[in-house]
């Protein structure tokens, strides 16, 4: 982009920053908690529910199947969700600045 928009003044900058950051951080924390429950929960299942962890699925012990194979598509699915949602937040932020949001920001 060749032309740059004038920077909003200090108070507005702070407000907008907080708004963008809060939404992005909320999204990141939500996705991270789903992931953390999975990865930090697995050792507990292994420890306290060995019958589930060692159940046989397609010849694999269940816990092995999850950590050695299914874990990868699950993390990719979480990332796809995150990238889409994060793009949406940024698109909204852009329209806020581009349209009559200019006035609102000032």
């Amino acid at each position, binding site marked *: 982009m060749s032309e740059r928009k004038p920077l909003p003044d200090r108070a507005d900058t702070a407000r907008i920053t907080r708004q963008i950051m809060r939404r992005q951080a909320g999204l*990141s924390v939500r*996705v991270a908690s789903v*992931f953390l429950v999975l*990865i930090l929960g697995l*050792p*507990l299942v292994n420890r306290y529910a060995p019958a589930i962890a060692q159940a046989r699925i397609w010849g694999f012990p269940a816990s*092995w199947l999850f950590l050695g194979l299914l874990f990868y598509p699950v993390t990719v699915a979480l990332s796809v969700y995150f990238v889409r949602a994060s*793009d949406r937040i940024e698109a909204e932020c852009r329209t806020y600045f581009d349209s009559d949001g200019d006035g609102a920001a000032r």
Partner: protein
Amino acid sequence: MTLLQWIPVFGVIFMTVATIGLGLWATRAAKTAADFFVAGRSVSVFWNASAISGEYLSAASFMGIAGLLMKNGYDALWYPACYAAGYLFLLLFIAGPLRRFGAYTIPDFAEGRFDSPNFRKVAVTFVLFIGFFYTMPQMKGAGLVLGAILNWPYWAGIAVVGMVITFNVAFGGMKGITFVQAFQYWAKMFAIALPIFILAGTFNHYPTNLKKIATTPGEIPSVWPDSTQVDRVQTIKGQANYPANVLACSPLGTTVIRLPEGARIARLSPVRTPREGEDRIENLLRVIRYPSKNNAGGDLAQTVYGADDGPISIAGEAEMIAMGVPVTRGGKPVMEDGKPVMTSAKIEFEQKTKLAISPGAPSPNTPTNLRWIEPFGPMTSKHGYPLLYTYSLIIALICGTAGLPHILVRFYTNPDGRAAKRTTLWVMVMLGSFYVFPPIWGTLGRLVQPSLYVTGATDQVVITLPNKLENPLLGAVLSAITSAGAFAAFMSTFSGLLVSMSGALAHDIYGKILRPRATPQQRMRMFKIAAVVIGAASMGLGLLVESFDIAMMVGWAFAIAACSYFPLLLLGAWWPGLTKFGAGCGMLGGGVLSLGAIVTSMLLDKKVIPLTVSPLTRSLLEQPAIWGVPLALGLMVVVSKLTAGSIPEDVDLKMLRLHAPEELGFSKNYIEH
């Protein structure tokens, strides 16, 4: 050497020539300073993701995970899973903001975020420090592979990899290596996957093999399942490589070991650590000495040794017999679950000892099928706190990945923050597809090549397993493919490390600290000089670490990164209240203490420090991330609160630059085209 033995060498030569050729081809396009440092920020998402994946899949990923899984079973699955999951954390918290901030290196970020040139110096030190720790294991891997397939001396592999990559980096900079690394990702993916599909035809499929292991929980693979096997002489590593010099015999069967002349046993002990009040075991090992040459008519001399006997020296040729012995307390057998508890001999040799093991004996140094396939096996439960050890390992691997400086540099080659997020997404797809395969190799290795347990060289399984095929030509061709893949791994990771370290010297130390007014041309020249100097230093360091463990050195780099850079980036990007004092204290405190803990743990292992520490302390020293990461984060918060006066005045604008989309015009590039 026969022609067949040369085939793997052709694989290595092909990979080396391809690396030089592609590097030269890509270099023609690298003209400007931005090309050099960040590949002109013109790399497309797909190629950038290939390059990041290519750079990340190092010796540890290509050879190490298969070897570690073969040795430890289920617990080793945490390594590939968390290596990949680290990128999720990068994506969620770091990738976008870091690229938007427009800094080229972590030191740029450190200075720009806190307006503190001094902080740049601290950050540069960490880049070099972590970089060198990560370089050493790559160098060692290169030395080992050429030793294994060619019988070349250790230094030869280091010289080949070191010189080829230094040449590529010095001439092409970042742009020169981006295409090479992208190519190397696909080469590695092909090399780890294709042989598995062919091997599965002979040695069964993954689920079948796992089922076989799971349904025979009490068994241990025998050393030579095939009794026509001729190569029965194996080398046991010397004491310098503790604990690889150990031969821990299984109590499940009888192991007959033939010793060469002049073998010396440093120590003899039971494999199961005796509990309080149990009797000393008197009959661990029987040694039968053959009549010597000048006493041909003499009798066989048989001696029985017990726990803690040693050193034992054997003058002539001899045979040792170890078998399962019941553990007793006050003369009565100790029972567990209605069965008597058995143990056997753990033999530690003084130096490399060539020996032969009887066919059909249970393989030494091998966990039972049950301990192997179930969680909390030999790796995580060795100090008695398996859950704690597992959690600490998970934290170290995930946070360490998200804080490795040579990986983070790559995010600046994205055109913008959105592309940075998309690139990370693709990296996770590429790494996930790769990491499915090393555990398949490790599982096959347990069933097909258990002799690797004897020498402790399970790291070689990817290179040597194909030779077990009945068709020797096919075996050699597949081994050539995996050898080429292993070389691609050393070379791509070393390229990335060399670029990030040379960048730190040329861009941060020379361009920002020593000569702030240097022209882009001068900086480019400095980059080339720095690449040569650091390349030479890396080769020198590689020569020094022959006796160190690859996994141990990589662990150091991960733990330091997890406890220093990860907290800096996380709080730096998201918490406006972070001050330079807080960030500095947290980084130094976390990084230095965790490194100290790991070094202490290693010295305890080698018995340099004659202290007995509690198993809990021992676990926390060996895997420090569980306290190191919270400590660093806590220090950052507390010290920042105390020094709140030094928060930069324009911190809101900085935060906006980190988080607002580029089109709004807050971003600024440190290196302009």
